[in-house]
């Protein structure tokens, strides 16, 4: 630490498999070719921020399969949310989903969640990374926003707000089987009886999934051959490449694409896909 006592920081001692800075993203820039980005499980990030007295949209950490360790360099409040996971402070077991008031020099270790994929860490004041297009989120497709974190990175924090008196919130369990509501269109006419194909199919989440999209393996969706002139894509669009294996676009998706979109997943259900481990069973439920 430098002698500058006005700078509040935390040090990321270990990132685990992947640690990213995420807030609620930068929607509204698709016409420039810029993806929305932002936390894949926004409910969990918002909850973590509320627990430490931040605005819901403050930047926190999005950890993939936990495994991170950080050290407080200032007095701060930290909350860990997402699927149930072990949290230790200087080796002592603490609870996730509640505010932890920490003195400087404490080491916080975050375990691997028993279910699900992504753990969120909010720190009072929020992570004060430089904003790009109004957001501090790391966009892995475009390379906009802070670089993915590395061991021993020091993160500057903003000014803390007034901690609220939230109760302990029970952690969620990620489900082994997802039934995802989907609305047909805009290109369901590329598929013979799109509704039946979607309703009867069964897929598993592929290990090639990432923040760009949840790739699904399973029932082949039969479609016409060919491509569409590139057209705008929204988060939740289910794109079907020629191999018939659907991809559900998540927050770092390309803003345009040339494969037909059979349907769009309601954004209220996207966090389930953001938390779905490879191997999770996925079915679609076409709705009006």
């Amino acid at each position: 630490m430098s002698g500058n006592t006005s700078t509040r920081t935390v040090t990321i001692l270990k990132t685990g498999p992947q640690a990213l800075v995420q807030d609620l993203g930068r929607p509204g820039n698709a016409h420039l070719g810029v993806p929305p980005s932002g936390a894949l499980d926004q409910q969990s990030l918002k909850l973590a921020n509320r627990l430490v007295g931040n605005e819901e949209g403050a930047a926190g950490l999005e950890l993939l399969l936990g495994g991170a360790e950080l050290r407080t360099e200032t007095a701060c409040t930290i909350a860990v949310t997402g699927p149930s996971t072990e949290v230790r402070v200087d080796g002592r077991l603490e609870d996730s989903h509640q505010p932890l008031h920490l003195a400087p020099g404490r080491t916080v270790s975050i375990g691997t969640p028993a279910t699900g994929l992504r753990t969120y860490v909010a720190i009072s004041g929020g992570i004060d990374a430089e904003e790009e297009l109004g957001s501090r989120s790391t966009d892995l497709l475009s390379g906009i926003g802070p670089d993915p974190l590395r061991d021993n990175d020091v993160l500057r924090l903003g000014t803390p707000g007034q901690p609220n008196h939230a109760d302990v919130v029970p952690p969620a369990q990620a489900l082994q089987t997802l039934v995802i509501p989907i609305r047909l269109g805009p290109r369901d006419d590329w598929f013979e009886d799109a509704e039946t194909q979607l309703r009867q199919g069964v897929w598993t989440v592929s290990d090639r999934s990432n923040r760009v999209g949840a790739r699904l393996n399973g029932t082949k969706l039969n479609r016409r051959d060919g491509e569409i002139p590139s057209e705008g894509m929204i988060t939740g669009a289910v794109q079907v490449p020629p191999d018939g294996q659907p991809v559900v676009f998540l927050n770092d998706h390309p803003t345009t694409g040339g494969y037909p979109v059979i349907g769009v997943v309601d954004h209220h259900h996207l966090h389930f896909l953001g938390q779905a481990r490879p191997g999770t069973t996925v079915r679609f439920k076409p709705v009006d």
Partner: protein
Amino acid sequence: MLLRRCGTDALLVEVDSLSEVAAVRAALQHLDGIEELVPAARTVLVKGALTEVRNVLRTVDLANVPPTTPREITIPVIYDGPDLDMVAETAGTTPDDVVKQHTAATYEVAFCGFAPGFAYLTGLPQQLRQPRLDSPRTKVPQGSVGIAGEFTAAYPRSTPGGWRLIGRTEITLFDAKAETPALMQPGDQVRFVIA
């Protein structure tokens, strides 16, 4: 014009030409409550304010883009691209004439996509319209200026790409940290000049 449903809060407006895309975009761009407005080759994706959007689209005149005063952007180009000779040969002319034609035309940003700040420019002279490379390059250097089909474009950063490259620019095309990150936005007018 066909309105295609895109989830609960977006529509894909499908039309027949780039000029109709421009008409739809111009009709919608100042509506309150629109969260995303994404023109493309034959479509405009619009998210938010769908009731107002449907009302506007009921009366939109696709044949006439309302007159605007577009921003004018000039891009200096060093015309030494690796495909310049091939483009000249395919066009049945000389490299000098390719440069002359490319710098004489006025272009318009039809839409952006592929990468942040990658603008598809229409207005390419007929003689320069050519297909993509048979085999795309794995790495096109940042600033490369190329042509493909009815479009010309400049690569804001190094990416894979299959456009025929006729030159390069040293101007910054996209800077996420800048107040206006993208040099070119849909509707802008663009000219290329010899650097």
